[in-house]
């Protein structure tokens, strides 16, 4: 739409030209080519906090105290100063501009963790419709906890884990959900997924997906628990037909393992060794059985096929556990299944994994794929945006670049595909990112691949620590003249004052302002160096 790169010319052209239908937001985002965070204040003196992220609406900066007990919330403001000289651009900023407080105003500090608990500083979810934040505190995991009460062996146990629902406007804790002697994968939101007002929490230890609803009043309400049971009344039905559970001694029924979820579902897990398979495992096995059954018309071949493809692998299917879950919409879950060894090992690629699409309303498995399935990869390639299921209210989340909505990202994916030596290994590698972690990507327009080109090994929209580099990270225009627009440098030209060697870096970009924070760490226990990048 814009014929000139000059911002004044673009503003004038915006006044007189109408963008093509459906492209008004894309046209507005092009102004970010002119408004870039080109100025850096190095090694800003700031409070000794662990900065987590900006909320996706840009209203708050979330940080935690160094002892991981307190939550401190800041409001991003903007630097303002006046200069009476004629040529102000050549003057340095006043000294008070080089302070953290010039850019951020502390709103409040709330103590979330008590006594032996710690805040999980890599976990945070934001519900922008009500400005609610979800935080997690936990005690230290115990690695050698016995697998009692229906727990799956091989997983650590956290004595107490609490999810706090907090109103970020004033820091009031609205509700809490506590799990006892359980394990949820908290770092980088891997075990929790937020979609609109629905929250899915995956209990790895007890193989249950807890679905909760966040009400506008600020209450966390249990909706259902998918695992041993699918429908809400499955437990009642099974308990009322206790003769089907084949207990050797009915007098031992009162010794069923008790619930470990406070405030909620007082259901008990059946003893799997003594009863039939129920819940989602039964749904999964039935689906696999029916699929193989329907493939063959001839009865003899059908039985042979079942023996080869189902019964031979029956125990492997029974031993599958839920790894990770995400919402595809309000009724469908994408569940990743795998082995216990695959979950606990660092090299999960070596272990088989499967994906299942589960309809929570009908409690049916809709589809089941292996992690090397070409079918699933084609869906991933064409409809990646729908795997990044976002809240209907978060319009800005719809503009995060992916290979389904951006030609440059698609070209990148295809070049990786062409270079891959094995097609199935490539598919496994790509599908290894599924299910996606919730709110793991920054909506900043500076990561829009149609606007800027940058080295994704050094910086990307994904919230991850990366190896630090001495060279500046360049952001180059995609469109002509394809010029360098700004650089993110992690240290001054002469190196830092005390000569510390920086090893790990991370970045926080504001969702819509030309403002970014960069951090350098020598180790996680050492104070980090904080740089502020902004448009002067």
């Amino acid at each position, binding site marked *: 739409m814009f014929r000139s790169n000059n911002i004044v010319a673009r503003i004038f052209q915006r006044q007189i030209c109408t963008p093509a239908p459906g492209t008004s937001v894309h046209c507005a985002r092009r102004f970010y080519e002119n408004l870039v965070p080109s100025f850096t204040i190095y090694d800003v003196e700031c409070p000794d906090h662990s900065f987590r992220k900006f909320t996706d609406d840009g209203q708050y900066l979330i940080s935690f105290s160094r002892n991981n007990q307190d939550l401190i919330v800041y409001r991003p403001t903007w630097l303002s100063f006046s200069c009476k000289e004629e040529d102000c651009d050549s003057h340095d900023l006043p000294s008070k501009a080089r302070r953290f407080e010039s850019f951020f105003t502390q709103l409040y500090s709330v103590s979330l963790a008590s006594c032996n608990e710690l805040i999980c500083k890599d976990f945070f979810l934001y519900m922008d419709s009500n400005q609610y934040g979800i935080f997690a505190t936990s005690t230290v995991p115990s690695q050698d906890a016995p697998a009692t009460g229906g727990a799956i062996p091989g997983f650590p146990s956290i004595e107490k884990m609490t999810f706090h629902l907090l109103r970020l406007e004033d820091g009031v804790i609205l509700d809490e959900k506590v799990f006892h002697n359980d394990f949820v994968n908290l770092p980088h939101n891997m075990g929790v997924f937020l979609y609109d007002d629905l929250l899915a929490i995956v209990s790895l230890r007890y193989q249950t997906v807890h679905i909760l609803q966040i009400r506008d009043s600020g209450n966390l309400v249990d909706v259902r628990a998918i695992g041993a049971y699918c429908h809400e009344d499955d437990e009642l039905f099974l308990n009322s037909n206790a003769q089907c559970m084949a207990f050797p001694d009915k007098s031992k029924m009162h010794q069923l393992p008790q619930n470990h979820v406070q405030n909620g579902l007082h259901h008990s897990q059946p003893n799997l060794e003594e009863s039939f398979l129920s819940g989602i495992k039964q749904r999964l096995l039935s689906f696999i059985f029916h699929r193989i059954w329907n493939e063959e018309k001839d009865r*003899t071949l059908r*039985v042979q096929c079942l023996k080869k493809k189902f019964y031979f692998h029956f125990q492997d299917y029974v031993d599958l556990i839920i790894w990770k879950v995400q919402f595809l919409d309000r009724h469908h879950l994408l569940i990743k299944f795998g082995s216990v060894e695959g979950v606990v090992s660092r090299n999960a690629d070596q272990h088989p994994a499967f994906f299942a699409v589960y309809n929570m309303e009908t409690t049916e498995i809709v589809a089941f794929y292996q992690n090397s399935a070409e079918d699933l990869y084609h869906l991933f390639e064409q409809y990646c945006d*729908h795997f990044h299921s976002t809240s209907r209210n978060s319009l800005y989340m719809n503009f995060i670049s992916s290979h389904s909505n951006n030609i440059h990202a698609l070209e990148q994916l295809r070049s990786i595909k062409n270079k891959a030596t094995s097609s199935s290994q490539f598919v496994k590698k790509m599908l290894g990112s599924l299910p996606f972690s919730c709110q793991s990507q920054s909506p900043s327009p500076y990561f829009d691949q149609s606007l800027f080109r940058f080295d994704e090994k050094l910086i990307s929209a994904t919230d991850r620590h990366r190896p630090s580099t001495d060279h500046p990270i360049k952001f180059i225009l995609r469109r002509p003249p394809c010029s360098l627009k700004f650089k993110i440098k992690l240290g001054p030209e002469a190196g830092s004052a005390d000569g510390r060697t920086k090893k790990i870096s991370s970045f926080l970009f504001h969702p819509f302002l030309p403002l970014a924070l960069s951090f350098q760490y020598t180790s996680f226990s050492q104070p980090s160096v904080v740089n502020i990048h902004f448009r002067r």
Partner: protein
Amino acid sequence: MGSLFGDWPSFDPHNFSQLQPSDPSSPSSCRVQAVILLDTVLLNQARFKCMFRKIGLTSLMYILILLRMTPATYHPTHSRTLPPPDQVITTDAKNILLRHIYQRAEEKDLRPKRAAPEHLVPEHGCKQPRASSSSC
């Protein structure tokens, strides 16, 4: 009742919707009538005004008359696209990803089953299928 335009000349009268007596008891037919009426009036204002002015009718009166003449259902003039059965257009709540997942699942269920080969004996004559065990 014939064409909406009566005996006015046209290249092919079958290019135009044929009229049928409207059924006031059917809510969908009333809805369809209202939509078709609005389209018809907006597109053919001059013609209708001319036609009804001759017999001294006001705009409101000719709208009321059209209501009774509006076809109850739409009969397409081509077979390239078929109207929905009850002509009420609804939106599928599922997104395109889930629609494709369901579609592929249905295709797998409906795809032609493989017929049994002529020889049921396995290819490797030295291998025999295992006897079925009681656990299976």
